[in-house]
């Protein structure tokens, strides 16, 4: 019997470059809700610029150059505001994992940096099987002191989405015209003066990850729930300029159910109790699509479990004592009084 832990290997690629980033967020959401295993996704996409986190399309890139060279722009969640370029010659290596599973592997743990380091090392271990002399650091993968990777990490408590782009055969000449802050990036093929077969790289990385983390990677597809969520994320976020250009994202919890946050007093006043009753009644036939969370002032962030997901508007309602308040998908819809049943129903249905 195998003693290996199993990770999922996902090679699903969408022809739509933006959908691929919706898929990355999807696998992270399904991992952090414990619906899937730790996941490694290997995928390639068309030439595009990825604005990581709060990177600005005005200040960080030459948007006109993107348009001239038909380089599409998409925004991806990231704790680092960074601009990443990729084309068909780049390999995207995405990890969606619970970092607690790395505890036994990491020695002399330095929070965050150790996780980045070990993930980069697993890729390096794979590349070294192709007789390539590369090195891992916490901030990237290097060949002869030149970086060949970019990463956009996202954290949710103990869960990490590590979105790394590996420049294997990437044509970085366009990138250099697009980006405003120059970085010393190179591609593996440029340094080795030869093209590298992408399939060989993928196979080597799979081996490197398996050996580093003592796991078995098993090819699987997106689950049905993940497909639905990816489509929803594409529709409400990744296909919209509101996100890609302005960086404003809708608030969705877990696997993307419409969320109704009700902020009330503790213990609830008579008005708060009536409101809770009304909300529960209005969504009684929408249980599969709507998640209702009752938040009581002063009961702390953990009143709904160890990994609370709280919209920024709920935090504001708490700070400003807006009680009671009904927040739908992160937007304050009703406050200070009980809304009419029809108005509440309409607001929830509009948010589905």
């Amino acid at each position, binding site marked *: 019997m195998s003693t290996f832990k199993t990770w999922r290997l996902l090679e699903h690629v969408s022809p739509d470059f933006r959908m691929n980033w919706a898929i990355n967020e999807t696998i992270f959401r399904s991992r952090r809700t414990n619906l899937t295993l730790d996941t490694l996704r290997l995928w390639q996409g068309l030439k595009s610029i990825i604005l990581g986190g709060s990177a600005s399309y005005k200040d960080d890139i030459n948007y006109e150059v993107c348009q001239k060279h038909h380089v599409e722009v998409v925004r991806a969640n990231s704790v680092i505001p960074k601009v990443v370029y990729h084309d068909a010659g780049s390999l995207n290596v995405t990890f969606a994992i619970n970092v607690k599973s790395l505890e036994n592997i990491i020695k002399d743990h330095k929070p965050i940096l150790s996780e980045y380091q070990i993930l980069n090392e697993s890729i390096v271990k794979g590349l070294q099987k192709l007789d390539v002399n590369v090195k891992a650091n916490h901030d990237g993968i290097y060949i002869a002191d030149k970086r060949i990777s970019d990463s956009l990490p996202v954290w949710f408590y103990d869960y990490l989405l590590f979105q790394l782009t590996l420049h294997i055969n990437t044509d970085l000449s366009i990138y250099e015209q697009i980006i405003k802050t120059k970085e010393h990036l190179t591609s593996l093929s440029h340094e080795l003066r030869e093209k590298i077969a992408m399939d060989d790289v993928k196979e080597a990385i799979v081996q490197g990850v398996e050996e580093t983390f003592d796991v078995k990677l098993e090819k699987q597809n997106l689950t049905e729930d993940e497909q639905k969520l990816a489509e929803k994320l594409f529709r409400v976020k990744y296909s919209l300029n509101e996100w890609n250009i302005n960086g404003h994202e809708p608030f969705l919890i877990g696997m993307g159910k419409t969320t109704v946050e009700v902020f009330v007093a503790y213990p609830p006043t008579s008005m708060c109790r009536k409101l809770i009753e009304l909300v529960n009644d209005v969504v009684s036939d929408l249980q599969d699509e709507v998640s209702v969370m*009752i938040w009581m002032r*002063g009961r702390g962030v953990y009143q709904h479990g160890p990994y609370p997901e709280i919209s920024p508007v709920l935090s504001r309602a708490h700070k400003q004592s807006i009680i009671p308040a009904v927040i739908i998908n992160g937007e304050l819809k009703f406050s200070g009084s009980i809304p009419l049943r029809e108005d509440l129903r309409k607001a929830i249905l509009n948010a589905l």
Partner: protein
Amino acid sequence: MEDVFYCIICNKPMQRSSKIIKCSFCGKKEKADYVCPDGHYVCEDCRIAPPDKLVTKVCKATEEKDPMKIAILLMKHPAIQMYGPEHHYLVSCVLLAVLKNIGKFEIDDSAFEKAVSRGKRILLGSCGLWGVCGAAAGVGIAVSIVTGATWTSDKERSLSMYAVSEVLDKIASIGGPRCCKASTFAAIEKAVKFFEREFGVQFPTLENPRPCYFRTLNNECLRDKCPYFR
């Protein structure tokens, strides 16, 4: 929704009630819904009150002469977060309430609004950013209000600043990271001594805040480093 609600004052499970009971915060009498075995009840207005309204309402209504008791009661209310600028005017209002009840100074209701308005101008994190903890400045506000000090005053202006500097000295000695509860305790202890010495105010009692009620609720508690931990 939770099945059982716990009293925000004593943490005992509350029971359903329909009796007319006095609010433990503002003193208003109304038909209660949940009451704890010790008789604590929080009226509906106080339950939804924002911090500034709660502090002024309670301080105007209280007959208490122990500033520490009022401060601890207020800080148990969920409107007062573990850390936050509401502690700045809480200190001023609590001191003004007690000075009014002791009868040493003529203090009308507008004094509390004045204190809140001045206290709200003190930045969140001013302790680290300006070197002036808001709780200490809150003592200065209370001194200024009772003496009528302004920037043109002579002795009154000095008294305000001496009060702040004495409180700051004590808060600074605790170290950091900041704890708004410890700073409030220290500010009140020092303010009581200051008012006794400079104005001859006799405070009938001063509750000992040790061990700090908030020590188990505060993720960043200074524990043994804090003089109020045990």
